[in-house]
């Protein structure tokens, strides 16, 4: 039985080696070219082209021409000759994410746009995705996964044929190692793309420290998460701390490279969506993370943006209802109201806050102000209902 196990272990190692070594070479990337028809990559592209058609019909797509043109131009500036090979899709999702498919489909999620402070930061993210495209990471990973899964299938058959417990144990261990090696490859690809994104952004004159600043903000959010962190070995991307440190070191080496942040242009392009992206973020109801994000947004927010940040801070505390949140909510609504052009709904929701803590006269004053500022409010009947309840004219049914 011992000999049998050793033989199986040998077979496992050999099969894995075979699996890892059998990858077809990558094609030379030439702008405007598709992979040759007789390759596995062409088959993958055909499937991805079909997926792209579904993506084009997705209700999650942000179709605003101005925002799409703005992001597409950034991608073109970063991608150079490969501009025409990349199609950008902005997806309404409140999470930090962007992705790149081998056929040139780039997805940018609104959570990434909300978390970027300027062009330099989103430029780093877009450059990172372009890095995945140019280094053909997806196709490498796809082939590697196929090869490893094939090797594991053979091993599983061998283990079943041997009929010993040792063989199954060795197979289990081999399976874990093989899958972990896939994740390691993914982390290496992320590092390579980080470097690519950094270099492309710096080459366009963007400030070199912006990628690290973005990751610093994301790390702070990640640390505020209210669930256990995932295991390091199976994290699909490098730990954010490691990533931030690497980018910071790179930024120090290129400190004099450029001074451009593109903050004004970025604010202008995202202005029409800022409030709705914040509302989507609130909808996640992951309040510890959102507080960190709001703190970061507050530091750079001006004018109406600042009013929205304070308003949603008020909303967060009103909805969370932890100890002391009522005062925090009131302070935040009041801070929003100090900004010219603040949203009138701040009065309405401050009124609801006062109602919750049983301060009816203050609540009534806020609701009156809301209806004065927004006489044609769609929820006027509801506010009037609570207003009459607060003034004692209505009877409650609770």
């Amino acid at each position: 039985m011992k000999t049998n196990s050793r033989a199986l272990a040998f077979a496992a190692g050999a099969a894995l080696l075979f699996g890892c070594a059998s990858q077809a070479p990558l094609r030379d990337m030439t702008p405007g070219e598709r992979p040759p028809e007789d390759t596995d990559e062409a088959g993958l592209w055909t499937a991805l082209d079909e997926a792209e058609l579904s993506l084009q019909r997705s209700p999650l797509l942000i179709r605003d021409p101005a925002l799409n043109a703005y992001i597409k131009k950034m991608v073109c500036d970063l991608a150079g000759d490969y501009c025409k090979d990349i199609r950008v899709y902005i997806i309404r999702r409140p999470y930090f994410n962007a992705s790149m498919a081998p056929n040139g489909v780039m997805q940018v999620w609104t959570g990434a746009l909300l978390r970027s402070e300027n062009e330099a930061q989103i430029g780093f993210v877009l450059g990172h995705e372009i890095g995945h495209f140019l280094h053909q990471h997806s196709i490498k990973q796809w082939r590697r996964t196929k090869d490893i899964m094939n090797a594991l299938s053979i091993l599983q058959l061998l283990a079943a044929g041997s009929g010993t417990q040792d063989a199954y144990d060795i197979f289990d261990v081999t399976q874990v190692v093989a899958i972990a090696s896939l994740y390691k490859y993914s982390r290496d690809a992320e590092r390579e793309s980080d470097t690519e994104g950094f270099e492309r952004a710096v080459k366009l004159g963007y400030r070199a420290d912006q990628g690290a600043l973005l990751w610093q903000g994301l790390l702070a959010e990640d640390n505020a998460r209210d669930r256990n962190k995932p295991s390091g070995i199976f994290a699909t991307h490098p730990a954010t701390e490691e990533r931030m440190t690497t980018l910071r070191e790179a930024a120090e080496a290129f400190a004099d490279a450029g001074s451009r942040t593109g903050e004004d242009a970025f604010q202008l392009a995202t202005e029409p969506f800022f409030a709705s992206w914040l509302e989507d973020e609130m909808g996640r109801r992951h309040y510890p993370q959102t507080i960190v994000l709001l703190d970061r947004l507050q530091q750079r927010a001006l004018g109406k943006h600042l009013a929205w940040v304070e308003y949603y801070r008020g909303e967060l505390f009103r909805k969370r209802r932890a100890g002391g949140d009522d005062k925090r909510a009131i302070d935040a609504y009041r801070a929003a109201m100090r900004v010219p052009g603040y949203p009138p709904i701040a009065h309405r929701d401050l009124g609801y806050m006062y109602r919750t803590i049983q301060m009816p006269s203050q609540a009534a004053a806020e609701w009156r102000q809301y209806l004065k500022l927004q006489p044609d409010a769609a929820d006027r009947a509801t506010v009037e209902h609570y207003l009459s309840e607060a003034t004692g004219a209505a009877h409650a049914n609770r």
Partner: protein
Amino acid sequence: MRIVDRWRVGVLAIGLMALLSACGAPPGLVRPNEPTKVARILNVTSPIEWARFRFFNGELWTVDGTALNRMLYLVNIRDRYHVFGLGKATKRRPDGAFYRTGMDASEIEAVLRDGFTGLGLVNVKTANLHPVRIGDFTAFRFDVSFDVGSGLHYLGNVTFFERREKLNMIWYSAPAEFYHPRDAEAVDQLLADLQIRK
């Protein structure tokens, strides 16, 4: 970078099917203009016929299939429980679409909106929140619209009220094309004739 939980919709759909098959009585029929007791606390008279599925805290009615029209009754949602039955708020999971007794109507509207998004619906919009009188109860109603992954656009409304410190809701939705316009008037009449047991 992060990948979002697209599987949630599938899990919920499976959960709903399991719920219906495991806990529910066999599908029944709601006959036109016959008063029907729903979940022990509602009396409903509908001008049109519906297929009816019962489960432990509510009922699901449909005319042509749940993807084409759906009237969902959920009753007795308790303090700190998820509005769509996804468990209770805990120290580890304090923030979510959880109902809290005493919420104002706009808060409940927001919780339900976030709950819809959590179910995998997209571009969820709510509007026109207003009080409606049902017997001795003050209920509230708002319009809701949303899209599903296939791109189909839905319209509908939600009526909700608190009874014995628990939340109860009736959610009607149907595709904006054909099905909603066809049944909207009948649904309005059903909601207008609604009775709530004290």
